[in-house]
């Protein structure tokens, strides 16, 4: 497995073109305020925007991408450019470079360019892993993404699911469960109640398992209570084995709720993960208790009198928080650093109490999303505050793990998804209103937690 590398991410929608990053780069690289030395370029866009999801903001970026399969290196006749196998940076050797500029022909992204002041090419070297531009940005429009380190670390751990699970194209839940089980490790028992996760083959077919650790297929109704009993038996014989539930929202919020609520109330030691795709997507896209208002499903159709789901979704993670179990958090596969931080905490907690992770997982098939747009939808779900990332523990209270100020309008999220295609402007306004209410409630909880902490 090849190494992944950290990278600078640009959030165009947060950029206001202040130029602090250019100045910081010029200072870091030349010790002067001469902007010609800057290797990052922010470009105000005055052209017609192309239509693709995830694009926002009037500013564009030209910066070396430290390509995995770089072309600048192949165009260099002097051997002056090379991909550093340790850092992933394309290193430029000024001693070897003959200033022929052929690298600038190879790069289609203007990532290596001519600096007229030095009369040499210049490119981003990520400041040895601490980019000055990222530190200088007052708007968090530049972000140093370190998810690569997580992928490298997890890549070293054994994949405990078999090859060839058959999820729908574009579905992120296979990514989620494979990474989760690598992190949990082999000392565990997995429960996968009816839903997409057993449906894709994790519990196996015809007497053959789909998993390298013990996995079983409880009823929708008894997942948490079965795990609680198995855990007690292991404790009795003196073995430290983690109980892991990989349930859908039906197996957690609806039919599974009685046993989940009971186990949470007793704080039974387990890690219960709800993979929330907002309905019964495995069995024909029926609505569940967490299906959002306005959604088309096969049981909430769109016609003359009905315009999708009429009820509001219940906020299951908040309900779980009210059980006072040891740890509750929300997460998204669009924000893996955030997910891993929570997963590590949850694994530690699950030795002694209940950890509940609620992961929002958009469904390409049931929500009518082109598979290649799923990751963009995951990110937009969070950027619009439709999904808020937070965590809770009884001693610290609720903490938002990603800022909720400056959200994108929720309409930008809804229009990416087929199941909301029919929404009227009034329905969109209603959804925006409930999102605002939900955010205000969570902010209040977070403020309360900080007050208690300071008291």
């Amino acid at each position, binding site marked *: 497995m090849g190494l992944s590398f950290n990278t600078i991410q640009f959030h165009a929608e947060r950029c206001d073109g202040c130029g602090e990053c250019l100045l910081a780069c010029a200072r870091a690289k030349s010790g002067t305020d001469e902007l010609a030395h800057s290797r990052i370029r922010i470009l*105000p866009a*005055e052209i*017609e925007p192309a239509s693709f999801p995830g694009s926002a903001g009037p500013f564009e970026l030209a910066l070396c991408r430290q390509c995995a399969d770089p072309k600048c290196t192949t165009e260099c006749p002097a051997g002056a450019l090379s991909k550093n196998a340790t850092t992933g940076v394309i290193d430029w050797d000024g001693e070897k470079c003959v200033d022929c500029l*052929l690298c600038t022909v190879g*790069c289609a992204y*203007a990532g290596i360019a001519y600096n*007229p002041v030095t*009369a040499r090419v210049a490119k981003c070297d990520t400041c040895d892993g601490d980019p000055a531009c990222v530190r200088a940005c007052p708007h968090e429009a530049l972000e140093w993404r370190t998810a690569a380190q997580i992928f490298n670390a997890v890549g070293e751990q054994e994949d405990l699911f078999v090859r060839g699970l058959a999820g729908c194209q574009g579905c992120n839940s296979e990514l989620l469960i494979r990474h989760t089980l690598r992190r949990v490790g082999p000392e565990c028992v997995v429960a996968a109640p009816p839903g997409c996760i057993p449906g894709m083959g994790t519990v196996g077919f015809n007497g053959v398992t789909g998993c390298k650790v013990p996995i079983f297929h409880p009823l929708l109704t008894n997942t948490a209570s079965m795990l609680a009993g198995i855990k007690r038996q292991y404790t009795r014989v003196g073995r430290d084995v983690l109980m892991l539930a990989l349930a859908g929202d039906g197996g957690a919020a609806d039919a599974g709720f009685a046993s989940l609520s009971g186990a949470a109330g007793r704080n039974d030691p387990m890690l219960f993960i709800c993979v929330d795709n907002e309905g019964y997507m495995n069995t024909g896209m029926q609505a569940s208790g967490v299906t959002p208002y306005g959604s088309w499903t096969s049981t909430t159709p769109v016609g003359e009198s009905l315009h999708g789901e009429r009820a509001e979704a219940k906020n299951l993670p908040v309900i779980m928080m009210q059980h006072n179990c040891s740890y509750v958090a929300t997460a998204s596969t669009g924000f893996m650093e955030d997910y891993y931080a929570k997963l590590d905490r949850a694994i530690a907690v699950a030795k002694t109490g209940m950890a509940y992770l609620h992961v929002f997982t958009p469904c390409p098939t049931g929500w009518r999303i082109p598979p290649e747009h799923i990751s963009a939808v995951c990110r937009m779900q969070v950027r619009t505050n439709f999904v808020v990332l937070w965590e809770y523990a009884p001693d610290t209270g609720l903490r938002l793990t990603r800022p909720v100020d400056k959200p994108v309008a929720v309409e930008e999220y809804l229009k990416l998804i087929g199941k909301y295609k029919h929404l009227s402007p009034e329905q969109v306004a209603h959804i925006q209103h409930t999102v605002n209410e939900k955010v205000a409630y969570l902010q209040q909880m977070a403020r309360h937690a900080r007050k208690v902490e300071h008291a």
Partner: protein
Amino acid sequence: MPHSQYLIVGSSHAALEAATAIRLHDAEGSVTLLTREHRLPYSPTILPYIVSGRSRPEEVTLRDEIWFAQNGVALRRNSEVVRVDPATQSVTTAAGKVWTYDRLLLATGGTPVMPMVPGLSEAKPHVLHTMDDAIALRDAIKQARSAIVLGAGLCGMHVAEGMAKAGLQVSVLIRSRPLREYFSPRAGNLIQAAFAGNGAQMLVGRTPAAVERDGDGCAVTLDDGRTVAADLLMVGTGVTPAMAHLAGSGLETGRGILVDDRMRTSVAGIWAAGDVAEARSFWGGKTVNGILPGAVEHGRIAGADMAQDAALRPFAGAMGLNTYHYFEHHAVSVGLGGQLPDTGEFEIDEQVDAGREKYRRIVMQDGRLVGFASIDDFADPGVMWQLILRRIDLTVMKAAFLAQPQATARRLMSRLWR
């Protein structure tokens, strides 16, 4: 009889890129490079910098032994291929060794063209084709006070510049104008002026009529009857595809080895790439495009096709692509540069600023960019290349593009193919 599943003749950019592309898709199959060189791979493009002393031969290798070992690619040096026999799927080296192959790539590059001038061959002029040539020329310059350069292509101009900087009295014979494939007459004048300003004698419009040895040096009689004498003579009048080893192979050739958009030759199991291949021109027809970025493109496609990589994207067509750094100046040329085709209507925006410090020429056709060239006015050639290849309609932003080509092209890049 040694056998390699993938056998590559050559060891420069096209050959190395093909080996890389093969390894991206096939980790197992045996890959062997046969090169007539006794050195590790280097780029022909670096040779003028060896001559000038800017680069040292041992520091410009494109791949080291470690790379070959790590990638499971064998490099066989001193193995010049003299015969290709598709019937037995084999090649023969000058030493008589026979290699068999499953798939063969010919990436043999070019050989210098020697103009038909009386006395020229006998005068044993310097050429700049191999590292050994470069080292010989570098050492000869140290002993010389004057030099004559025949030809004003990139190679000749680079060498002439190095000689002028080393203090030699340099005369450059230019048949038409410098770098005419890449730059218009006005740009050519600027380049020429920089050379004249640095003490080089630019003999424009002149061709050699005869060459004689003159003691340790030589004397060149020009077509106008004048005679120029110098300690050194260097010929840089271009290269032609190296195809001597193809006699009897049955491969279809034109100016070079004819290939399709997957770099396949007319014979099954044989590919060709780089300066030896005659492939699609972006502007129609076929062309031998002897440039480094072209060789890389060819090599990547040939290697991917040889390894049956489904991700292969067929060749989009060759165009002029070059950068040129001379004295304190830098120039770039992308697409249609020095010479426009006779067919079609072009809009040309060519500007030389009053102080003659900057030059820019933008050529458009049907609202699309087809050529960009500049001197001391940098705009990312890699981005311009994509704008041409993708045939991006610039009609709505033409004014912005003409006023600020670099910034506008970068914005388009970020919008369209980031």
